[in-house]
């Protein structure tokens, strides 16, 4: 009673393992990393009958226990280490009814480890449709296991599965075949040398290049030294082992499974014919991408406006409620605008993750891989590079991790190096706000200029990734074998639950990951903006008041006042249909003293900002970025966004909040603030078409993400590549932005 057991879910990719995991744990799951490596670790809790609690680990998908990637190493390491706190009391092998033969290979290997093993056959709902029938009793006897026939899609058989897991002690632990007779002498010797060890475990230790981190090192080393065979011989033995296992499986299935081929209606063939067609295939792929970007724009505009307004009122509300002081200011001017600047992008990021999840779940992504391989190879990439490049539109970090299944090191390295060019979701906030500011709202054949610009930016990102891959392919002198094996799973209607879980999990990770950095940087920026460097800072009020009393409003100030009046006038005309000229001018006259006060306050605030530590930093970088069309405030934002791109907007909103004390109605959202921003010396708008495009291009190319650099270091195991990436990308970004601004201004 009250006992907790460890359950490991193991299976081939595309067997619906994650669906089984979701069905068992519901929302009681958490995603983390295995210590020291970046492989995702999914675990959850499931209540079983009779008060037993199960701690379930969803292990990375693998075709066999012969590891060829970091993800697969995790599986072996766990299964071989009896001392691991997660070592399973029961291994649940998830298979799919249509690929039973292949799925059983892994099953027989796990049986050899003598762990209680349960076989789950998923997608049972497709059996009649595919004309498959199974003799469960026969299979259970032959495979020495219990079988749970389930359908996660129809939610059938889950209770039975829980029951079987709870009764794990009834499961036989004997292997179902004797693989050691592929080379009797060799294995007999091995057994004699290590009589206390499991033979198959020894065999795995010898053949795998796994880093057995936590297991008993000495023991492993002793086994690993027992290499009486060459690498080639071992590989041949592994092949014999695989063939042997397949013979066993074929025999078992000959009687245990019948397939009536005539009943199989083939949707796959029909869909494949269109989706991988040499013309239609590409056309459909392009249309899907176009639809995604239009949808990201259209569907998220309402929730985004809502969030924008909520945060603006929150800031204002806090200033009104809390007493004046440093803490209130930090909250209202530093933290809230900083966080608001990132939370506003939840809708768009969630939609992007949604589309990627649907493409992956439906099986379409593999077709894209197939379709693009030949084209990508020309640029030194693999068809599999398409997946990192597409998921790079969400975030470069998981994308770079997704390169692990690319078999050739050269293709993989190039993919890692060029992936940061793709437009990640952190660039999205920057793009969106600048597009909103400088690109007209008109539509062109039903497609807005704004979404088109966004799509163009994505294409530029993708194009520069491919182009730099081409150059790298010419420059890098690496010889490595190129293998390419990709499974083409069946088309499936994505499971709503799986898609939603993925979206929630990924969005959460993005928000919390980015949120921490943004919070920290917002505070730093606010503090730097609140520390005065000289007497101009502390006497700002007197200086400004004295100047205005002596000379009246300067040209710029007068213009700013006029601007406020005009905007107020326009809002009056918009709000009231029958308003007369005199009513308008009366209202303006009534409001003018307030406007004047606002102008003066703005002037004080910006004088303060200029003379703060933050202003000083901005002024130092200004000469470098002035040719690109940016002022010192943007300079600060760019410098701080070297940590992460999305910080740009957070920083700007913090700066503008610090820079204007009175927030009238039209001036409260970040967008409005940016729009009204002007160069102090020339009084020209800061965000024009030219400077906007220049900024867009700068962000398209610059390598501004410390986390990406860290992951590249980790995956390539050298500082050389991330440093090269940083220098080349950012220099290139600077040059392109410079050219763009100088041509357009």
């Amino acid at each position, binding site marked *: 009673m009250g006992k907790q057991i460890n359950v490991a879910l193991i299976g081939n990719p595309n067997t619906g393992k994650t669906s089984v995991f979701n069905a068992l744990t519901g929302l009681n799951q958490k995603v983390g990393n295995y210590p020291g490596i970046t492989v995702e670790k999914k675990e959850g809790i499931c209540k079983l009958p009779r008060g037993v609690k199960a701690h379930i680990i969803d292990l990375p998908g693998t075709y066999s226990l012969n590891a060829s990637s970091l993800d697969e190493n995790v599986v072996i390491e766990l299964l071989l280490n009896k001392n691991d706190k997660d070592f399973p009391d029961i291994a649940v092998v998830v298979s799919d009814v249509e690929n039973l033969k292949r799925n059983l290979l892994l099953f027989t290997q796990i049986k050899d480890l003598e762990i209680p093993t349960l076989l789950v056959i998923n997608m049972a709902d497709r059996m009649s449709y595919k004309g498959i029938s199974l003799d469960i009793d026969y299979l259970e006897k032959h495979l020495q296991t219990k079988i749970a026939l389930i359908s996660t899609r129809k939610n059938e058989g889950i209770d039975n599965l829980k029951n079987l897991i709870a009764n794990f002690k009834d499961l036989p632990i004997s292997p179902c075949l004797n693989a050691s007779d592929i080379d009797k002498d060799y294995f007999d010797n091995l057994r004699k040398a290590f009589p206390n060890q499991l033979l198959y475990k020894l065999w795995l230790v010898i053949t795998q290049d796994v880093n057995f981190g936590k297991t008993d090192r000495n023991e492993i080393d002793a086994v690993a030294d027992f290499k009486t065979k060459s690498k080639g011989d071992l*590989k041949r033995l592994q092949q014999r082992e*695989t063939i042997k296992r397949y013979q066993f499986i074929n025999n078992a299935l000959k009687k245990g499974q019948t397939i009536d081929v005539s009943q199989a209606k083939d949707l796959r063939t029909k869909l*494949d014919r269109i989706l991988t067609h*040499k013309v239609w295939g590409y056309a459909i792929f392009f249309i899907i991408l176009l639809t995604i970007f239009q949808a990201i724009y259209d569907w998220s505009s309402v929730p985004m406006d809502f969030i924008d307004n909520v945060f603006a009122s929150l800031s204002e509300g806090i200033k009104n409620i809390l007493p004046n002081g440093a803490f209130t200011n930090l909250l209202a001017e530093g933290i809230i605008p900083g966080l608001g600047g990132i939370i506003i992008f939840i809708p768009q990021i969630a939609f992007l993750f949604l589309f990627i999840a649907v493409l992956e779940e439906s099986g379409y992504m593999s077709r894209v891989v*197939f*379709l693009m391989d030949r084209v990508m190879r020309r640029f030194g990439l693999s*068809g599999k590079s398409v997946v990192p490049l597409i998921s790079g539109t969400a975030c470069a970090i998981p994308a770079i991790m997704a390169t692990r299944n690319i*078999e050739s090191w050269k293709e993989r390295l190039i993919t890692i190096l060029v992936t940061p060019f793709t437009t990640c979701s952190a660039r999205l906030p920057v793009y969106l706000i600048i597009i909103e500011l400088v690109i007209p709202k008109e539509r062109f054949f039903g497609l807005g200029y704004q979404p088109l610009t966004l799509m163009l930016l994505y294409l530029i990102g993708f194009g520069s990734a491919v182009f730099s891959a081409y150059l790298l392919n010419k420059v890098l002198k690496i010889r490595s074998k190129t293998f390419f*094996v*990709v499974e083409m799973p069946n088309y499936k209607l994505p499971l709503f639950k799986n898609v939603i879980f993925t979206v929630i999990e990924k969005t959460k990770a993005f928000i919390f990951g980015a949120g921490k950095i943004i919070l920290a940087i917002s505070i730093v920026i606010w503090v730097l903006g609140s520390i005065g460097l000289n007497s101009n800072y502390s006497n700002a009020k007197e200086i400004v008041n004295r100047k205005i009393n002596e000379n009246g409003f300067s040209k710029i100030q007068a213009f700013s006042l006029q601007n406020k009046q005009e905007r107020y006038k326009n809002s009056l005309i918009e709000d009231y249909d029958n308003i007369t000229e005199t009513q308008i001018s009366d209202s303006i006259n009534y409001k003018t003293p307030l406007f004047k006060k606002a102008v003066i306050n703005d002037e004080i605030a910006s004088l303060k900002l200029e003379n703060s530590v933050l202003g000083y930093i901005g002024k130092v970088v200004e000469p470098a970025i002035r040719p690109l069309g940016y002022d010192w405030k943007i300079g600060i934002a760019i410098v701080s966004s070297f940590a992460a791109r999305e910080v740009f907007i957070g920083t700007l909103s913090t700066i503008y909040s610090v820079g204007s004390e009175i927030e009238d109605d039209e001036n409260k959202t970040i967008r409005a603030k940016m729009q009204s921003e002007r160069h102090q010396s020339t009084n020209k708008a800061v965000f024009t078409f030219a400077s906007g495009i220049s900024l867009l291009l700068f962000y398209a190319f610059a390598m501004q993400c410390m986390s990406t650099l860290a992951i590249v270091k980790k995956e390539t195991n050298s500082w050389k590549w991330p440093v090269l990436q940083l220098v080349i990308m950012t220099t290139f970004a600077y040059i392109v932005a410079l050219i763009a601004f100088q041509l357009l201004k």
Partner: protein
Amino acid sequence: MQDTLAHLKRGEKGIITDVSSIHIPLKLLEMGCLPGNLVQLLQLAPFQDPMYLNINGTHLAIRKETASHILIEKITHG
């Protein structure tokens, strides 16, 4: 000269007779690409490469280069 998998035309089937072990990743074998198994070419990607195959009930795609290391015997009828 014996046929290899790379010689199959769309829709054609064959039986795998031998695989050249140095050139073939173990993963491919694990997915069922073993002597004695049935293979059918389902589709060719644009530019005739990679090849989309049904090997022993498993659907997968490999490059022509890899396919040329897998020896087969064509099944001529249907």
